């Protein structure tokens, strides 16, 4: 790198992807060589219904700049109703996190099917832009290791 | 400068060996990294140390080696929690932390000139092994009378230190009795629970001390047998387990009455325990 040139900020995003749709969608994006930013760290979960709100909070606490949670489209759940149940949780999580002061755009939810490789790339691109615009995580859940406020 | 008792010394895990058939107990051999550390780590059979698996935490384990085995210390640890799991998975060559030695030890001075009956069950045999090895050492053997070891496990595969036991079988300096709970193919020695076998073997209590370590149930049923054989509570010793953190008698969790097991124990005589509340 040339001196003085700064590397553009690349956020780290924890992506919780359901095994049957979104993970397969990510796979398809890879196989099809659809370009998207290398910002996500994928964690495969069996179903979006498996998402515990603590996963999201802990990712933020440990310094992820953003979180993406993605599952099958409603109606397409491999387990019939996992994402329907998850949807109720997600709505509440999203609302509460904003309420306590987490910036809009840090935590993102989407539905991506196994056939939507292009769309997966688009979603990651969009989420990356949003998180990048917010800058590094200095948010309400970021634990700095000090242990006390003083 | 004063020693900071919370700072571990760094030791190298040179051997991580599976000890039992159920693969739940491993023996870790740790090597001192310099003379100074080893000098400072003067211990006696019965003492324990806080072993750090960095990244996972710290937990107390009885030292299985005897001070007569220089350069290393060993721990035999069952896989139960966060730290022990991490240790079991640890690659040889990894650096770990050790704080200690901690606690009191078996009264080896008081035992001098006496016969010893060592009774152990399951994987609580670690510090008992330390004591046996200590007494068998040529420098110490003459200090003690007859040594009888009664050691039992659920099945032959769960006995610790199998090679050493085989050696003791033929060693005239020690009388080894091994037993398993239920008959097993190929097993020709005793079958039965420790209390029963102790009663059968019936070691004489004359001029003799007994040291008993094992699961609570084993201890509970062995004590009356020893009493019947004529052992007074002052001559029966045991080593207790407690959840511990600091190991220094400060953090407050391992007390039995006013005594801290980490600092005032872990070795107690039955006479001492009778004075304490039965909260262990």
């Amino acid at each position, binding site marked *: 790198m040339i001196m003085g040139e700064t590397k553009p900020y690349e956020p780290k995003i924890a992506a919780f992807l359901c095994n049957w749709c979104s993970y397969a969608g990510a796979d398809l994006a890879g196989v099809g060589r659809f370009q998207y930013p290398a910002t996500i760290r994928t964690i495969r979960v069996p179903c979006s219904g498996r998402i515990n709100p603590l996963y999201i909070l802990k990712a933020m606490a440990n310094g992820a700049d953003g979180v993406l949670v993605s599952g099958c489209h409603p109606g397409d759940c491999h387990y019939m109703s996992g994402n329907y149940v998850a949807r109720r949780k997600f709505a509440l999580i999203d609302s509460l996190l904003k309420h306590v002061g987490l910036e809009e755009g840090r935590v993102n939810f989407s539905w991506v099917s196994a056939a939507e490789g292009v769309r997966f790339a688009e979603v990651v691109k969009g989420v990356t832009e949003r998180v990048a615009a917010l800058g590094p995580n200095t948010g309400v859940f970021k634990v700095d290791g000090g242990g006390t406020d003083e | 400068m004063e020693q900071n008792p919370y700072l571990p010394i760094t030791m190298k895990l040179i051997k991580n060996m599976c000890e039992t058939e159920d693969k739940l107990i491993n023996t870790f051999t740790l090597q001192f990294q310099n003379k100074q550390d080893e000098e400072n780590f003067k211990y006696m059979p019965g003492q324990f140390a806080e072993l750090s698996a960095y990244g996972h935490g710290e937990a107390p384990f009885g030292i299985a080696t005897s001070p007569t085995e220089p350069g290393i210390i060993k721990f035999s640890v069952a896989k139960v929690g966060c730290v022990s799991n991490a240790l079991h998975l640890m690659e040889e060559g*990894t650096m770990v932390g050790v704080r200690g030695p901690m606690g009191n030890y078996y009264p080896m001075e008081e035992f001098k000139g006496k016969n010893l009956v060592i009774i152990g069950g399951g994987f609580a045999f670690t510090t008992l092994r330390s004591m046996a090895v200590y007494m068998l050492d040529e420098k110490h053997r003459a200090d003690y009378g007859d040594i009888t070891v009664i050691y039992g496990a659920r099945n032959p595969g769960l006995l610790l230190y199998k090679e050493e036991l085989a050696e003791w079988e033929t060693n005239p300096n020690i009388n080894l009795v091994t037993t398993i709970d239920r008959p097993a193919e190929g097993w020709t020695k005793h079958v039965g629970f420790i209390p029963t076998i102790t009663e059968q073997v019936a070691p004489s209590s004359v001029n003799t001390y007994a040291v008993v370590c094992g699961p609570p149930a084993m201890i509970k049923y062995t004590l009356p047998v020893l009493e019947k054989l004529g052992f007074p509570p002052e001559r029966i010793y045991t080593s207790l387990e407690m959840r511990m953190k600091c190991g220094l008698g400060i953090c*407050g969790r391992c007390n039995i009455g006013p005594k801290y097991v980490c600092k005032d124990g872990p070795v107690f005589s039955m006479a001492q325990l009778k004075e304490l509340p039965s909260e262990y």
Partner: protein
Amino acid sequence: MKISKEKFGQSFDALTAEYQVVAPVSEAGAVNFKTAKSFSEVKQDYLNSKLPPKSLLFPQHEKLLSYVKEGKDITVKNELKVGKTVLFGIRPCDAKAMLLLDKVFKNDQYRDPYYFDRRDNTVIIGLACNKIAPTCFCSSMGISPACSEGSDLLLIDLGDSYNVEVITEKGKELLASLGELSELSAQEQALVDTVKSAQTTSKVDVSTITAKLDKMFDNSYWDTLHEKCLGCNACSFSCPTCHCFDISEEVIKSEGSRVRTWDACMAPLFTLHGSGHNPRDKKKSRWRQRMMHKFNYFVHNNGDIACVGCGRCIKGCPVNMDIRQAIDGVNKAEVVVD
């Protein structure tokens, strides 16, 4: 002898250059001990701090060491850091509590360097209580609202000035940097005498409790005492003498630290073995431990009762468990003599 508050304030501000000066400060609706940059921040007419000042010597969360893992190697760093501190305005009960903590963090075999390096570098300016709360019962614990035990200097608020009493050498040294003293007026002397002779209105009898508890481990008293307790740590964390702690690991990737955090005997996990066995698995045994530790074990080990009568646990308890009633209960319990 007295020092005017104006002059004391100036000296206080000057001290902040050399010392970390910790004083009662009102923040988020409560008075607590915090680092003060100026005397004007100090809340002077406070009854007592919401949380005890023990955290200055024994923080709720403290790094003992940190480390970096690289492959199989490890680099460990001691996290012991100490600066000089002046602790201003602590009440006699809390000052006494520090003496009790001293006995915990040093025993026949070990000395806790994290606690003592702070302790040895701290000068304590006690402030006697002009007002006594109905939940205060320090008089029953061998302390009084103007007790000097544990303080290096003891102040009594006289309105515009403080009566100053030198208790220790450390206090004498600090006094030199505080400014000139002047004589008390007769009226002020009378006020000093009033404060010094004051007693708490609430009292308990602990004269025989230790001996009584010696015989009470298996008493049926414990069967009901604990019943309404929720098992939270509010009492322990607000107690100036409770000192139990946990040591745990905090790790992100290859870097971590070992920290100690407050813990308490009321939590079931406190004594849970790896095997699943728990010697104090019931709320009953945990309450017995709390009482025994404060009024019996601690006395056997350290010669003192581990309660200073500050009343914080009474005020903080969500279900109004009152340690004064618990003490009364022990006094009234029938003991079977064998």
